[in-house]
């Protein structure tokens, strides 16, 4: 009798644990898509783009608008991505190109200004209240995971989309010529231009790729997270943590770092209270757990910076 009870409890724990792993993966893959663009831009172009978060936000807003206008999810998403690409190219041409040769501080100031400007702009156009994006019809519903817990199908879709993106990026970077130039640029940017590669076109390509990835992440996240001005700020901070942990300029590092951060953050938030309850009373455990779980990924970043400052999977040539 007691062993049956224990087995049931174990099953409940396992299914909850499985769900938290899935949640961590989903968060991680979303962050990967944002971080990949950021790490490339920072790694190859040595450009600090704080406005990467607003590209995520613009992707979400454009998706909301296009899907509402066309009534069709795939068409709306495609149009939104085209819009993100165009806006990204426009930003690159108008704001970023003059800044490539400037100091990092100038780049930070300019892109921070861009954040403020675009957040306000979005608020002026769409209003302060958040927009609603429905989950596309084919992905509605939930999947039954052990113990009667339902897990939304759409979150599986996000995980799948993230993995496909990661695969495409890996193929592109490892197997194509442009990918080779990209990797070269991440390791030795000066050498690359000395070898006669059109660096300007490469930069534009990297920038466009990064914007589309971030916008795609925003469009994917829109049905589950509210679409509001400033939604990109939080994910930008997380993306920076990811690329510091993973290694700047390395897509492999962004992938590993993102999954690590996603899993650790989710598991910490879920289980910290229970772990602390082993040591102190419930109320105290709750109080400490909240603060501690939010800090966890930053503590991790500090530890990585201390032990291995170049990141876990640095771009070749930067170790």
């Amino acid at each position: 009798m007691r062993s049956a009870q224990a087995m049931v409890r174990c099953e409940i724990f396992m299914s909850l644990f499985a769900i938290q792993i899935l949640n961590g993966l989903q968060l991680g893959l979303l962050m990967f898509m944002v971080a990949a663009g950021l790490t490339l831009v920072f790694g190859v172009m040595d450009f600090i783009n704080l406005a990467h978060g607003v590209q995520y936000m613009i992707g979400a807003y454009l998706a909301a608008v296009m899907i509402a206008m066309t009534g069709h999810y795939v068409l709306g998403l495609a149009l939104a991505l085209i819009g993100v690409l165009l806006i990204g190219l426009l930003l690159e041409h108008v704001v970023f190109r003059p800044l490539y040769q400037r100091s990092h501080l100038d780049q930070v100031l300019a892109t921070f200004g861009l954040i403020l400007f675009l957040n306000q702009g979005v608020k002026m156009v769409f209003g302060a209240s958040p927009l609603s994006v429905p989950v596309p019809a084919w992905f509605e519903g939930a999947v039954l995971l052990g113990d009667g817990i339902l897990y939304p199908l759409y979150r599986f879709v996000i995980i799948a989309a993230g993995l496909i993106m990661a695969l495409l990026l890996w193929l592109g970077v490892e197997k194509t010529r442009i990918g080779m130039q990209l990797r070269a640029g991440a390791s030795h940017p000066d050498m690359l231009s000395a070898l006669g590669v059109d660096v300007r076109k490469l930069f534009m390509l990297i920038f466009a790729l990064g914007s589309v990835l971030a916008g795609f992440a925003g469009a994917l996240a829109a049905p589950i997270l509210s679409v509001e001005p400033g939604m990109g700020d939080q994910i930008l901070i997380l993306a920076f943590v990811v690329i510091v942990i993973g290694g700047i300029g390395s897509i492999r590092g962004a992938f590993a770092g993102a999954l690590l951060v996603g899993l650790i953050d989710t598991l910490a938030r879920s289980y910290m209270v229970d772990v602390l309850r082993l040591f102190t009373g419930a109320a105290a455990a709750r109080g400490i757990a909240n603060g501690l779980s939010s800090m966890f990924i930053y503590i991790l970043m500090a530890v990585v910076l201390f032990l291995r400052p170049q990141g876990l999977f640095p771009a070749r040539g930067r170790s």
Partner: protein
Amino acid sequence: MMKQRGAMKQWSIRAVQAGLALLAFGIGGAQAQEPLKIGLVSVLSGPQATLGQQVRDGFQLAIKDLGGKIAGRPVEVIVIDDELKPDVAVSKVRGLLEKDKVDFVVGPVFSNILQAIHKPVTDSGAFLISPNAGTSNFAGKACHENFFVTSYQNDQPHEVLGKYAQDKGYKRAYLIAPNYQAGKDSLAGFKRHFTGEIVDEVYAPLGQLDYASELAKIASAKPDVLFVFLPGGMGINFVKQFRQAGLADKLPFLSAFTVDESVLPAQQDAAIGFRSGMSWAPNMNNPQSKAFVQNYEANFNVVPGSYAMQAYDAGQLINAALTATKGSTADKAALRAALKKADFVSLRGKFKFNTNGYPIQDFYVVKVAKRADGKFQTEIEEKVFSDYGDTYAAECPLK
């Protein structure tokens, strides 16, 4: 000679008296045409701006419905944006008091702003009328005769759901709120009337957007009822994710400020059937409320929430008080007495003030529904409290 001087003195005294009388009459009469200045403090920027806009629009609609005049005096509403920053609010409110010399300050929306501006306004002799924030300290020991609230004491909407859960016989409740003072007050308010088992009391990080982790724990804990306080963007995400996780059919959803009219346009169908607690709903069945809802929608194209209703009542309150004093703000004691009487027809029907300046009113459980025209609103389901005063009034020394 003495008589002449005496007569002269008498005449000059009379002249001075007559002059003073004329002057006083002149002042009194002039005040009838002097504009009535009211300062409106609200959050008009940032993610919470929709609440502040409702307060501003509700109040300005009340003034508009009065023809822009109160007791014959033209009304000048000076709107300031507190940006949800207490220091900004205090400096701007000081400007209202010292430069514009307002007689009334209406606001704010958020409790932290209230804590900051309460003293500057009440010390200066102006009246502070809050259309939303109603903290417990100003209801109890720190109550002030110049402070009136047209909304409720902050604990009350949460207490409504606690009582409802208790009356409906739920035994195991799961609670979730953000990790800040209002979140802690909310869950404390719920527990005041609910004596069942609290399965877990979760404080999520403020501003968290993805609740997948919390929802998985809720699903596995299998409580009888869920109580949620997650205002703004947090609530939008939680509601959508709750529905997506398939929990809506299995777990009764009780909440406060999580499914109100400011966030329903973003939540849409995901929130249908979810319950909340309030002293009013847009579908309230009395003529003044129906007229207000129609009027508000015609002007602003959104369904009004409690924020707009309370701000409108604040406008009516000021009108009623000044009508009683015939437009004069000179006699503060008379004006205060007139304000305390609350002699106006509230949009929610019954309304009167407690000794501490907070309302005594009915509270209902409301349910989210979709209207025939496709818009979403909360609708009254059942009354939970009648003539409910707050629990802190006993500590207030005012009579």
